């Protein structure tokens, strides 16, 4: 009988290490997401009291998140929904897209709505 390691039957328990070995990509993604969370938290804390968009988007953690590329997009959209913040430059830099209408630039509520709509159209859950 073939063993389905993703759906253990009965009392059969697959050791976590074996599962990680069987799906190394998933483990790597989890590590990257944890790194994203750490950098995003640091960015929120260290830019909380500034109005200066240039300082906010030049923060080292923010730049490292941009360097993560496309895998960071769903995490950014999630953080934008739960914690807010000026993620707009990062989303533009990573995706090469500008879904915010010109007249809405500078109105964060509208900018967020445009990016959530874009995320939905591109299959990202936020």
């Amino acid at each position, binding site marked *: 009988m073939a063993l389905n390691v993703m759906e253990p039957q009965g009392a059969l328990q697959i050791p976590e290490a074996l599962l990680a070995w069987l799906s190394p990509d998933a483990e790597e993604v989890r590590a990257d997401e944890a790194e994203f969370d750490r950098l995003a938290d640091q960015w929120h804390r260290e830019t*909380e*009291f500034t109005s200066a968009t240039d300082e906010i988007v030049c923060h080292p953690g923010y730049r490292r998140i941009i360097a993560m590329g496309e895998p960071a997009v769903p995490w950014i959209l999630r953080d934008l929904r739960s914690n807010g913040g000026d993620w707009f430059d990062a989303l533009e830099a990573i995706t090469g897209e500008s879904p915010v209408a010109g007249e809405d630039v500078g109105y*964060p509520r509208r900018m967020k709505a445009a990016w959530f709509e874009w995320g939905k159209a591109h299959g990202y859950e936020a």
Partner: protein
Amino acid sequence: MAFDPAEFPNLKTYTPTGDASDEYNCIAHACGHDDRWNWPGRHWPKGFGSSRSVRTFKNFLALHRFEQCGDGALEEGWEKVALYATGDTAQHAARQLNSGEWTSKMGHGIVITHPDVHSVEGPKYGKVVMYFRRKRTVTATPS
């Protein structure tokens, strides 16, 4: 994120008056708006460029009918704004309330009222470098 006054060593007395929000910032709050982020690269007049110089912010405030004045003393019929900078780099703006106290939107953080205009001076916002005033109107700025 909880407001940590330790970030502002001169802030001895303050009252939180508004929730943290990423939908408006200090300069928008100073001009009476709570739906926009006024800064170069965001909601900013065309042709003003990306400079954060005191002169640029002076021009921005002039668009909102603020003229430069000498100090932050309470004047009947006038609404005042204090501009903070480190060197020539604008960092923050606070608006005077009818009571003579000052209201500050702290970046993405909360809104506070502080009795002394100088109490948010320090490493983050620098010092008050210029004061402005405009005539108060009936529809004016929310306190």
